[in-house]
């Protein structure tokens, strides 16, 4: 039985190496790790579902070719966001041109009222992508708590979170503060390119049931909420 794939911010280089060696599972992990960013940037161009799917695939096809020079997490995130923007924008403009050509002359003035492709605030989406990578570094309990508090809309009440996680309600407030503190440290390391943090205690719930565990595919956030089969032949 193979061991579960682990995701953490320092793994991009390793995943790229494994992809270059032809490991399909590493490619899947790399896609899952960065798909939210590609999806978020592409969606901002208000493309049809079919075009959105094409852009998504084109970006990852380009990534296959670009793998050897994109080992670093931040470079990879920037490359993915700018490549997605370029491909999505070109698609949106092409559709707009096609639409213009399909109109009868008397309908052309209508085009003036059409909104142009919008595009995304890349910096904001890159920051959100980096935070997702940072979240993946936390213990699963921290991830689940922060996902519930900050990614669910509307955020569930503390009582509901406590019930879901099987912890006392009074432990939610202090634990969320420790998880945010831990995330700050992880983010600082990600942005300053310092070596990965080692030996920093993971926050635990006051009930003592928390602690470091491996992050596995499908653990993080709404965007990665669909489970994946981890043990494959």
């Amino acid at each position, binding site marked *: 039985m193979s061991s579960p794939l682990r995701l953490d911010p320092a793994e991009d280089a390793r995943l790229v190496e494994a992809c270059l060696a032809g490991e399909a599972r590493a490619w899947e992990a790399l896609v899952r790790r960065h798909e939210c960013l590609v999806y978020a940037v592409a969606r901002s161009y208000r493309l049809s579902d079919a075009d959105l799917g094409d852009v998504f*695939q084109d970006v990852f096809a380009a990534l296959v070719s670009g*793998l*050897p020079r994109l080992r670093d997490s931040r470079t990879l995130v920037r490359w993915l966001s*700018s490549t997605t923007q370029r491909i999505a924008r070109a698609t949106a403009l092409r559709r707009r041109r096609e639409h213009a050509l399909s109109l009868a002359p008397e309908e052309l003035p209508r085009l003036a009222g059409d909104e142009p492709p919008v595009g995304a605030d890349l910096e904001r989406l890159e920051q959100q992508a980096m935070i997702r990578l940072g979240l993946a570094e936390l213990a699963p309990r921290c991830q689940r708590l922060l996902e519930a508090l900050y990614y669910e809309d509307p955020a569930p009440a503390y009582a509901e979170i406590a019930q879901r996680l099987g912890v006392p309600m009074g432990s939610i407030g202090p634990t969320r*503060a420790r998880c945010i503190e831990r995330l*700050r440290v992880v983010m600082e390391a990600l942005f300053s390119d310092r070596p990965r943090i080692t030996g920093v205690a993971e926050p635990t719930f006051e009930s003592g049931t928390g602690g470091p565990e491996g992050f596995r595919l499908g653990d993080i956030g709404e*965007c990665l909420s669909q489970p994946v089969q981890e043990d494959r032949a």
Partner: protein
Amino acid sequence: MKRPPVGRQHLDVRAILDYLEDRLDASARRNVEDHLAGSCSRCRELLHEVGRLTGAMLADRTPPVPAAMRERSLEVFGVRAEHPTSPRLVWQVARLLFDSRVSPIPHAARRAMGEARWLRFALDDHVLELETEPESGGSMTIRGCLASPDPALFRIEVAAGDESSIAWPDSAGRFSLERVPVGEASVTVQGPGQRWRLPAIDL
């Protein structure tokens, strides 16, 4: 309600979160605001940092990627039977084009520059400009601009003394590094598929 932060004590992340999420009673809230209004820049910075972090998470409402879409992206890997082999990046040496310390420049320009030093390097088709300026306390500030079609994909590392600092240019190619120790500095620039070493710079 929750724990009222103590007057002069620094705020911790929990107090900041409770404040940002409006979980404090009036008195605790006033204590936090009094502290933040005082001379404690450290707590104000923490407030902004935690606010930015939680704000970015709250603003992230990207829906799940449809499974069919992901499947298509997984297929592109299989299609390429031959994966590109990893090329070994060789270090190239950037060419010094200009150094205000040794090149003759008009007197007026030198006066305007003050203590700053300007350097320009050619990195194949890209041009890197650096301006180094001494700070108080024996360190330097390095500001720079990388002229390249996509400067945001580059990473610039300056190693001086026992320290190493990394900068990522913005989309206009600008970047800056502060508190770089004086002494001989080694600067490297890494971009997609290429990397360069600059000739050693004496800061």
